[in-house]
């Protein structure tokens, strides 16, 4: 078995191991919830043992007690400095969900569908506006705001928490209104997007990936460019030129592909020089 799916599965199961929650429509209330996981995993998911870093950050920023969260920011800085977007490729439960959705064979020629480059900047706008600005500045008369990304956009909350909790509670079902309908429709659109385009949410909408992308060039864990050859990348990048760029999720598929394809074809530097030459000629 490949290492990456194994790690992803263990992280998904490990961070959502409170199985009792799924049976009774409840959530875990123990002390582990004080710790944030590095990836996107809604803390209201019935199985969640830990907290979501984005939800926690917004909750503190939107509250009246603190104007800045040293704790969650420190965790995010630490995760970013060590891993960069390796977290997206290996440690994000919602990333695995997206990859599984993309395996659904509903559309032909998925590879031919490209995302326009300016779409990739949407996630940075969401990070600045919905995760930071709105929770900090859009506060009511008692000085309490709301977690805008969770409230209006996050499909992980709807899929991992909303659907199972509403399925198990008549009271919650009765309380669901226009906002739930909006989030359900948006989540359905994200699901379709992920079926068609590999990691659609990561590439276009995820503010957590946007934050970690700032660390991709400097984090301790990086991909050695000398080990990358060819042009294979599921994220639509050119591995030779864009490994460790903002969009690289460090899945390592380019390295594995290069190992298979270029085995016995001379040194890494020679193959890389030839590949770069091909790219320049084809451009």
């Amino acid at each position, binding site marked *: 078995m490949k290492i990456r799916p194994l790690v992803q599965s263990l992280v998904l199961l490990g961070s959502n191991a409170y199985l009792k929650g799924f049976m009774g429509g409840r959530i875990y209330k123990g002390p582990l*919830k004080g710790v944030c996981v590095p990836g996107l995993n809604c803390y209201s998911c019935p199985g969640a043992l830990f907290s979501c870093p984005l939800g926690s950050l917004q909750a503190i920023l939107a509250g009246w007690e603190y104007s800045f969260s*040293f704790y969650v920011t*420190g965790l995010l*800085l*630490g995760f970013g400095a060590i891993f960069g977007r390796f977290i997206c490729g290996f440690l994000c439960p919602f990333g695995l969900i997206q990859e599984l959705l993309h395996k659904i064979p509903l559309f032909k020629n998925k590879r031919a569908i490209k995302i326009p480059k300016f779409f990739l900047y949407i996630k940075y706008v969401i990070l600045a506006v919905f995760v930071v600005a709105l929770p900090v500045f859009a506060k009511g008369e008692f000085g309490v705001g709301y977690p805008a990304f969770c409230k209006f956009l996050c499909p992980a909350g709807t899929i991992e928490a909303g659907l199972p909790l509403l399925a198990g509670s008549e009271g919650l079902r009765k309380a669901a209104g226009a906002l739930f309908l909006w989030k359900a429709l948006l989540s359905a659109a994200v699901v379709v997007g992920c079926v068609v385009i590999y990691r659609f949410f990561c590439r276009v909408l995820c503010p957590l990936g946007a934050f970690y992308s700032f*660390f991709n060039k400097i984090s301790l864990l990086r991909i050695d460019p000398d080990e990358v050859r060819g042009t294979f990348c599921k994220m639509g990048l050119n591995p030779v030129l864009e490994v460790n760029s903002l969009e690289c999720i460090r899945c390592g598929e380019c390295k594995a592909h290069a190992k298979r394809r270029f085995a016995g074809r001379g040194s890494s530097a020679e193959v890389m020089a030839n590949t770069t030459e091909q790219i320049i000629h084809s451009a």
Partner: protein
Amino acid sequence: MTRGKYLKCLPLVILAVAGLFIAIGVTRGEVEAVLEKAVNICLECIGIG
């Protein structure tokens, strides 16, 4: 300092800042604030609040 050395040191500096931030956050009681939010169903997250 050369660019290579600077890039090697930068994540370590960020890690040190991260550690300091976490320590400040813990002493300010932010863990309890995160816990308090996380042990209750987040109505905004599920699309109700």
